[in-house]
């Protein structure tokens, strides 16, 4: 899943030109129905990977989820963002720069191998680490809310290393402003 996200997100970066510094949304990013006229770069991507990009409206929840990546994953009892996490958050920041009306909620989550209250604090640390990194990349702090769910909202139901790794995450959720 991780690798898949990386590949599709890279494709998306190529498609939009990955212009983190570009301040305003360009015309092709406004809400459109599918099969709108793609820009040149997009045409290329459609050729190479038509399934992923053809039906997703830019600026939509799905666009964010599929083409940008909504979660970063933490090491055990850590809230440090490694380079892989930073790449995802750079894409998030770039995407958010393109859609300035979008507000996000970053949820910090922990695995079940800790006590409830400590994990609530740890989740808040993680959510805040994501927020601070996004803000450092130019996302306005006023667009980013945080919440900690501690170990209360696991993504994976298992009680094994793989599930715990998935459940130690920072989840960027679009709250408002997305196209549908």
């Amino acid at each position: 899943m991780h690798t898949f996200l990386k590949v599709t997100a890279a494709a998306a970066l190529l498609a939009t030109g990955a212009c983190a510094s570009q301040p305003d949304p360009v015309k092709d990013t406004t809400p459109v129905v599918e099969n709108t006229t793609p820009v040149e770069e997009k045409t290329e991507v459609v050729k190479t990977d038509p399934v992923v990009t053809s039906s997703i409206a830019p600026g939509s929840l799905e666009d964010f989820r599929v083409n940008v990546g909504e979660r970063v994953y933490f090491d055990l009892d850590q809230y440090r963002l490694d380079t892989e996490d930073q790449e995802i958050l750079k894409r998030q920041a770039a995407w958010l720069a393109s859609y300035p009306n979008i507000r996000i909620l970053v949820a910090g989550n922990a695995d079940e191998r800790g006590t409830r209250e400590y994990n609530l604090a740890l989740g808040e640390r993680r959510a805040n680490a994501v927020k601070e990194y996004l803000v450092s990349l130019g996302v306005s702090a006023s667009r980013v809310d945080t919440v900690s769910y501690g170990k209360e909202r696991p993504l994976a139901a298992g009680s094994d290393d793989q599930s715990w790794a998935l459940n130690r995450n920072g989840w960027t959720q679009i709250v408002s402003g997305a196209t549908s």
Partner: protein
Amino acid sequence: MTHRAMLYLRRFLAAAVIALGLVAPASAQLRVRVDEGNFQPTPIAIPDFQVTGANADLAKQIAEVVRADLASTGLFDLQNPASFIQRDLSINAEPRFADWKIIRTEGLVVGTFEEMADGKVAVSFRLWDIYGGELMRINGEPGRRLTTTPENWRRIAHKIADSIYTRLTGEDPYFDTRIVYIAETGPKTARVKRLAIMDSDGANQQYLTSGRSTVLTPRFSPSAQEITYMSYEGGKPRVYLFNIETGRQELLGNFPGMTFSPRFTRDGQSVLLSQAQRGNTDIYILNLRTRESDRLTDHPSIDTSPSMSPDGKSVVFNSDRGGTPQLYIMNTDKSKRTCPGGGSDVACRITFGKGRYSTPVWSPRGDLIAFTKQEGGKFYVGVIGIDGKGERLLTEAYLDEGPDWSPNGRVIVYFREARPGASPQLFSVDLSGRNERRLVTQTDASDPAWSPLLQ
């Protein structure tokens, strides 16, 4: 009196005479010890109560609850009524001690049940020391009589059991109490969590919240009328007060960040809680009358799960300031204290064993702190002295978490996931580590908290 009981008695009396300068009472009496290493439950008999009036079923049920309460301590062996020889007991006559010695009864409860003209019910009872051959006075009285409305019959039963328990062990009572907890339903990835409450024996289970918002970590006020807990009401995790009588919920404090891990101070005037803001969690104390809060810790580490000492002078909490979650004690007035490990500091670390320690809860007696410990893929509930000495692990499982004390400081309640993927359930264990028992709930359950003794 048995040889064992006599030994205990001599020890007890010697200690009492030395410590308090008391004159020993004229005769020896039955006393059940709660801390003996080589433990044998004491045989006691509680025959059904004699009934005057119609409601024999209710009388039977009351006696059953008394027996169940006492049996639940693990300290008593409730003898089988079929083995009783004397069948003509009267509350106004001495039992035939010889008849009870044959079946080795040490303590005998004789009671009557009556329905009164105003519709109330009354239970009278006496406690007999069979081997001492005498009546055991309860609070100086030769017996006790309790009256209530029929709907309240369980509370009469718990109060009788409390009287007997206290008279025989010297420990404070704890049966006439309630336990609040989180009732959990639904799949693990979409749990519904509701506040729920039940009697200490698991009877009268009811839900206090709808489950619309996730709620966590309820704790009783010393009045037993209010609960403080954390709720995701409105999407924001914050600490609330819940009034059990009125069902009213009230947001506590005006904190910009998320608030959690609430716990009342022992005087009930304030709530200790954690606030997390900008990636840092610190501990605050909120005065319930003035609604003003004071910051107790100011450290870039996680400081959470505060619990105050019974004298109000100290707070134990969980912090990862040393690299991993450990337990620390600080003075409530934030002055420096002398640390058990040497030196003085505002917060003294008290856990130095292997593993991660969290959820400290100060015993109502003041001498011990219960905690959750995580080490080597297992979780434990244990206790440690406030000087960091004498750590004892009482339980072990895939997940054992969140201990809380019975109001007399004898029993610890907690929740357990027995195996990976197992549902959470409530358990209790005696301070000695004996008598681990499941508290049966209608749903999965976590975060149990014990009320003070009801009024």
